[in-house]
């Protein structure tokens, strides 16, 4: 049984429909990517999953429970955590306060969880008192993911977590994402525009103009001519 089961959802902003009958599944502990060019609807799709945007049609099941009509805080409490591409930290709050906000739904002391996420991102340990808005791009991205992990979600939605990072940091970040699935058992749904990220996933979907055009395993995606032709114009064959 998949952790996340999206069935034929339509979503958009007012009269402007962005997603058309999108279906997708994610199994426990799996890393699944959504590839697609700018404006394909990738971020809109994640917003719909997180409850920020209500789907106009279709069904979203998390651990077999429907979530498409629920408020974002309900969805977070059920084990889905979303890390947006931009504005993904609370800039005027400290690193520690950001992590505490990630654990807002926990009833007890979040200290143990903070230690847990800091064991994945040790760079954050020495910056606990620093204001998040003053962190570098890489540190901020780590904090954003760490905040998303504070509730030990069953699935983590990452929206282009490597955008704007230096090439050496991209690899480190992708390794961290792999570590998350191994250590915490969380599944990851990763939105990306780079083929590098595909090497870290088990399966992937190609989303263009709001529709799933193609889906396959990692090997299938990397070898597929459609992916290269449609997404990379055939120029960046790996």
């Amino acid at each position, binding site marked *: 049984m998949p952790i996340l089961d999206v069935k034929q959802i339509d979503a958009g902003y007012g009269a402007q429909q962005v997603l058309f009958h999108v279906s997708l599944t994610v199994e426990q502990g799996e890393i699944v990517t959504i590839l697609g060019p700018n404006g394909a609807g990738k971020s809109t799709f994640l917003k719909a999953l997180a409850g920020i945007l209500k789907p106009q049609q279709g069904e979203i099941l998390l651990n077999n429970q429907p979530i498409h009509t629920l*408020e974002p805080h309900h969805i977070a*409490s059920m084990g889905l955590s*979303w890390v947006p591409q931009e504005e993904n930290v609370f800039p005027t709050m400290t690193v520690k306060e950001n992590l505490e*906000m990630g654990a807002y739904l926990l009833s007890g002391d979040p200290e143990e969880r903070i230690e847990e996420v800091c064991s994945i991102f040790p760079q954050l340990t020495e910056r606990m008192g620093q204001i998040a808005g003053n962190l570098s791009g890489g540190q901020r991205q780590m904090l954003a993911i760490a905040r998303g992990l504070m509730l030990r979600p069953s699935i983590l939605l990452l929206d282009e977590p490597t955008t704007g990072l230096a090439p050496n940091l991209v690899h480190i970040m992708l390794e961290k994402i792999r570590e998350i699935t191994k250590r915490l058992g969380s599944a990851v749904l990763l939105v990306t525009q780079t083929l590098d990220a595909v090497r870290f996933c088990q399966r992937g979907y190609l989303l263009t103009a709001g529709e799933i055009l193609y889906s396959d395993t990692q090997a299938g995606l990397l070898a597929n001519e459609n992916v290269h032709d449609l997404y990379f114009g055939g120029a960046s064959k790996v």
Partner: protein
Amino acid sequence: MFDLLISGIIYGSIITLGAIGLTLMADILGFFNFSYGEYFSLGAYCTLLFLGILPQWGTFPELSFGWSMLLAILFSMVLTILVMLLADKFFFKKLRAMGATPLFLALASLGLSFMLRALIYIAWGPEVRYYTSTIQMSLELPLGIFIKADEIFIFFSAMALVMLVYIFLNKTKMGKAMRAMSCNLTLAKASGIQTGKVIAWTWIISGILVSVAGTLYAIAVQLRPDMGWTFLIPLFVAVIMGGIGSFWGAMVGGMTIGITEELMSGLLQDLFFALDVNVDMSIYRPAIAFIFVVVILLFRPHGIFGKKGS
């Protein structure tokens, strides 16, 4: 000169109290609430109401009031908060659900302000009122400063409340959630923060601050049905000058406005008196505040502690 400075600090402490509540509302609810001034009046009048109901247990040494005043403030706080929460439930919440813009919400709050003020006029009448008819003697301090014990109480209780709000915002889970929501609403929602609860807490904290500020102002000056509407000017000026959403900005803005208004109106009054010109400077006090804020905003468009885009 020292007398003017001291009364400026006391007046500034009341502005600070009200400005912190107003800046929290503007930042978290996303609009300038014009009805805030009427809650200021309501807080003061509710204290008067409960003072009339509660038994009189005498006065504290040097002060013009006793335990009944402290209890009346507490009850007034609860009643003011209740009115504010009802206003949100039956008015602002519905407008938010309809997707009302900040400008629309501000205009709606202006309408509510007229309604509340009319109700205060109906309930208590247009005449000026006082909590006590006792004449209080000033205490003489070094440097030739004369100050009433009530004014010392006003300053220290305002500052104590400001500190408590600061601790609440920085040390409690709900306080941090309020800051998070003012920082990034979408991320706050996705982090599991229940925005409805945070909004309710914003009304509660602002209600405590504005009702106490109203009562403290009435202890220092008097009760008038339009007191809140008039006081809204220095409150807005303090919030805009300090930077919308900034706790420290509201504090610095409040104190600056209080001291400047007192000093400038006092000194100009003395000057006109020396020139044998008959002018009552007290009616020009709001103008002094506005001139000050215009000068500050020319150099700091987001206010002293404001963030870009505020």
